[in-house]
């Protein structure tokens, strides 16, 4: 799965947790979950749980702490997928 595909999947996961319709249509690498999408910490946990399920990976506490924007989240997902495959 390449970066673009991961971002596409992320868009679908994030959608139900944000009311920022304009920001949602413009999601790219620079989108920040808290500042741009106004997602709170409780919903951020749900997003991470949805990511685990969708990509069949496990996110640890250290990774979770970094998953505040699309760029970092995509990188972590890519790393975990690679570790999984290898």
């Amino acid at each position, binding site marked *: 799965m390449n970066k673009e595909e991961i971002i596409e999947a992320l868009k679908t996961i994030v959608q139900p947790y944000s009311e920022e319709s304009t920001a949602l249509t413009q999601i790219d690498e620079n989108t920040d979950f808290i500042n741009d999408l106004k997602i*709170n*910490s*409780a*919903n*951020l*946990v*749900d997003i*991470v*749980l949805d990511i685990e399920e969708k990509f069949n990976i496990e996110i640890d*506490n250290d990774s*979770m702490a970094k998953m505040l924007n699309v760029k970092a989240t995509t990188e972590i997902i890519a790393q975990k997928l690679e570790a999984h495959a290898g």
Partner: protein
Amino acid sequence: MNPQEILDKLPYGKSFLFVDELLHVDENGAKGTYTYAKDLPFYEGHFKNRPLTPAVILTETMAQIGLVCLGIYLLKNMETDQNIAIAMTSNAIDFLKPVTPEEKVTVTSEKIYFRFNKLSCKVKMENAAGEMVCKGNISGMLISKENE
């Protein structure tokens, strides 16, 4: 950590404490009781001439017993000597039967998940006759703070 130690850690004042006894708590859930005294202030207005326990108070009771007591137990097992702040972040509850003044209710919770400090539980409340009063899911964020 025993039930009394958990009750001592609850952050509520007398006017907003809805836990009498904590019957059981382990890492998968909690069970406790509360009796709504007839002189609780909200009965005067909810409703005029027909006191019934507000749904928001039933929800709060389920959250205090099912989520907060369990949360204190879970955090306590991980770290020691910290104060705990808890915020309810979502709930979805079905209300099946009214609860009148002086009724004793029993709340039971089952942990769905506890990850990244978010605790999500399935909760139910039963009356003294063992009938289901309300049930649903409640989630909250648990934040443990250094002792001040």
